[in-house]
């Protein structure tokens, strides 16, 4: 699944995310600053086990519409932005793989940092996404229940 526009690329994907390739996609000669955020599974858990993988699930059409709302809101707040990439993986994500990648390019670094941070914060709170922690011998839903909100309310 992907929805690529000239400068916006949001996707929910079962395939491994290549942060380096996404970062290169966001580079443009007019934008000297590129900020990338990668979220990867951590061994520490909300349960009492060492996590070996996370399993993500969502409804891709719904989730991509909400990703697009995040990128639209970032553009409204920082009109100078260049490219915005918001990709979230679904299915099993192993340690050292990326579950989520955000890339923002901008003429200068202040807006790139501010907007990238807004995007990952808004993504985590406004995109429907459920996460199971997987350990040796078991798994459970991650216990950090939050109500879904809209990106424009953040």
């Amino acid at each position, binding site marked *: 699944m992907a929805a690529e526009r000239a400068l916006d690329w949001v996707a929910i994907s079962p395939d491994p995310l290549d942060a380096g390739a996404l970062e290169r996609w966001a580079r443009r000669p007019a934008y000297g600053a590129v900020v990338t955020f990668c979220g990867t599974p951590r061994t520490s858990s909300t349960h009492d086990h060492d996590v070996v993988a996370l399993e993500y*699930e969502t409804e891709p059409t719904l989730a991509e519409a909400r990703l697009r709302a995040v990128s639209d809101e970032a553009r409204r707040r920082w009109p100078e932005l260049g490219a915005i990439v918001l990709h979230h993986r679904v299915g099993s994500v192993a340690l050292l793989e990326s579950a989520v990648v955000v890339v923002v390019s901008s003429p200068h670094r202040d807006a790139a940092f501010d907007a990238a941070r807004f995007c990952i914060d808004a993504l985590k709170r406004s995109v*429907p996404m459920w996460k199971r922690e997987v350990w040796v011998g078991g798994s459970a839903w991650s216990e*950090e229940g*939050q109500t879904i909100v809209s990106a424009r309310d953040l």
Partner: protein
Amino acid sequence: MTTLLLLGPAREAAGVARDEFVGATIDEILDAAIARYGEAFTRVLAVSQVWLNGEATSRDAPVGPQDEVVVLPPISGG
């Protein structure tokens, strides 16, 4: 028939990700779902949001055969 999407823990509790129901409002769809899926689903539904066609709405909103009702449990967040 109105489509009901069940996501994450709601899918797990219901045992299906997508189902169809007859009802005039979201409340009627959800009552029928409770009757079909039982107590585990009722507990998840109690803490979930319910959207109509991708947007939050009230539970007395009318629904028709082209509509999609979605049950969204709390998300994992950060």
